[in-house]
C-alpha cells in the first residue's frame, strides 16, 4: 500500500472508530520512517527504540482524540520529534548531573556503537552535527539526509518555511566550519 492509500485507509478506520486496526496500520506503515527520524536525533539504536515505543504509546493513547485536521504523517512526526527532544533533554540532565557533556558522551558512544557503520569521515560529520543546537540539528537531518520539503518540515516542526531555510543555512555553514579542522 502506498503512502497516500494508507493515509486514506487509516482515515477511514478512524472515522469508523476502529482504533485498533487503525493503530496496527499506522505502526506497520510508519515504523521505519519514524525510526530513522528518531535515530538521527538520538543516534544510539537502544535510545531510538525507547523513543519509538514512547512515540507509539502516545499515538495509541491519543488516537481517539486525533481530529484529522492535519495529515496523520505530520501528526506522527510531530509526536516523534517531541518525544526525541524530551528524551534528549532528560538524558542531558542526567549526564550534566554526573558532570558530563551529553554531546561528548554521545560522540564517544558512537565510536564504539556496533550499529554505527560509518567510516572516520562519517564520524566527523556526526560529531559536527552534534555541535548544532537541537532544533538546527533536527532541521539539518531532515533536509540533508531525507531531503524533506520545507513546507512539510514546517507542518511537523511548527516553524515557518522561511525560518527553517535560515536555520538550515546556519547549520550547513557551522558544519562546514567545523570540518575544516580535519
Amino acid at each position, binding site marked *: 500500500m502506498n503512502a497516500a492509500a494508507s493515509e486514506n485507509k487509516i482515515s477511514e478506520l478512524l472515522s469508523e472508530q476502529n482504533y485498533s486496526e487503525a493503530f496496527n496500520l499506522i505502526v506497520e506503515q510508519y515504523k521505519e520512517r519514524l525510526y*530513522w527520524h528518531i535515530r538521527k536525533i538520538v543516534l544510539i539504536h537502544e535510545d531510538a527504540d525507547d523513543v519509538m515505543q514512547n512515540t507509539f504509546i502516545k499515538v495509541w493513547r491519543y488516537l481517539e482524540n486525533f481530529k484529522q485536521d492535519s495529515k496523520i504523517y505530520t501528526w506522527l512526526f510531530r509526536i516523534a520529534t517531541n518525544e526525541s527532544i524530551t528524551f534528549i533533554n532528560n538524558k542531558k540532565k542526567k549526564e550534566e548531573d554526573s558532570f558530563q557533556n551529553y554531546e561528548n558522551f554521545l560522540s564517544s558512544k558512537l565510536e564504539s556503537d556496533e550499529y554505527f557503520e560509518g567510516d572516520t569521515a562519517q564520524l566527523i560529520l556526526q560529531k559536527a552535527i552534534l555541535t548544532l543546537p537541537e532544533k538546527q540539528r533536527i532541521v539539518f537531518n531532515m533536509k540533508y539526509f531525507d531531503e524533506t520539503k520545507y513546507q512539510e518540515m514546517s507542518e511537523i516542526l511548527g516553524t515557518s518555511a522561511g525560518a527553517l531555510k535560515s536555520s538550515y543555512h546556519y547549520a*550547513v555553514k557551522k558544519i562546514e566550519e567545523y570540518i575544516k579542522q580535519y
Partner: protein
Amino acid sequence: MNNLNNINKENNFKIPENYFDTFSQELETRISEENLKKRFGNKKPFTVPNNYFKIFSVKYKKNERKIIKLIIPWLSAAAGIIIIFALWQFLLTEVNKNKHTETNDTLISTHLNLIADNQIQINENNIEYLEPEINAYIDETDASQLYEYTNNESSDDILNTDNETVYEYFIDYADDNDYTELLAEL
C-alpha cells in the same frame, strides 16, 4: 502594430517578497550542501539489529487500553462518592448550625422569661450566655436610657462609647446588682 504599441510595456510579473535577499543565501546554502555531500555523501551511517522492523511491536499497548478502560469507571465512581460525602458533610454542618442557633434562641427566651418572672436571678454565668441579646438591645436602645437601668455613676462615659464598652459595663454591673429590671426590658 498599433495594437502592440498600445500595450503597457511595464513589467507585469511579480516575485515573492524579499526574493532577491533570500536568493543569495539559498544559493550559498546549496553550494555548501553540495560540498558536504561530495565529501560525506548523505547516506545514513546507522544500522539496526537483524529483523528489527519485522519483529518490532509496541509493548503493553493492549494492556494500557485495558487498564484505562478498567480504571476509568472506578475513578468516576470514587469521584462520585467523594462528592456525595462532601455534600453530606456540608449539609450536616449547615443543619447542625441551624439547630444550634435554634437551640440558643429557645434557651435565651426561656432564660428571659424565667428572669422576667423572677424565677431565676441573673448572675455572671448566665449574663455571658445572654450576650447576643444584650448586644442587640444595646444596638436598638439609646445609651442614656440604658444608663437609667444601671446607676448614676460615670454617665458621661457610657453616653460616648461603643457597644463593646457598654456591654463590659453591664457585665461589671452584673457582679453586684440585680438585673431583673434591666433584663425584663430585653
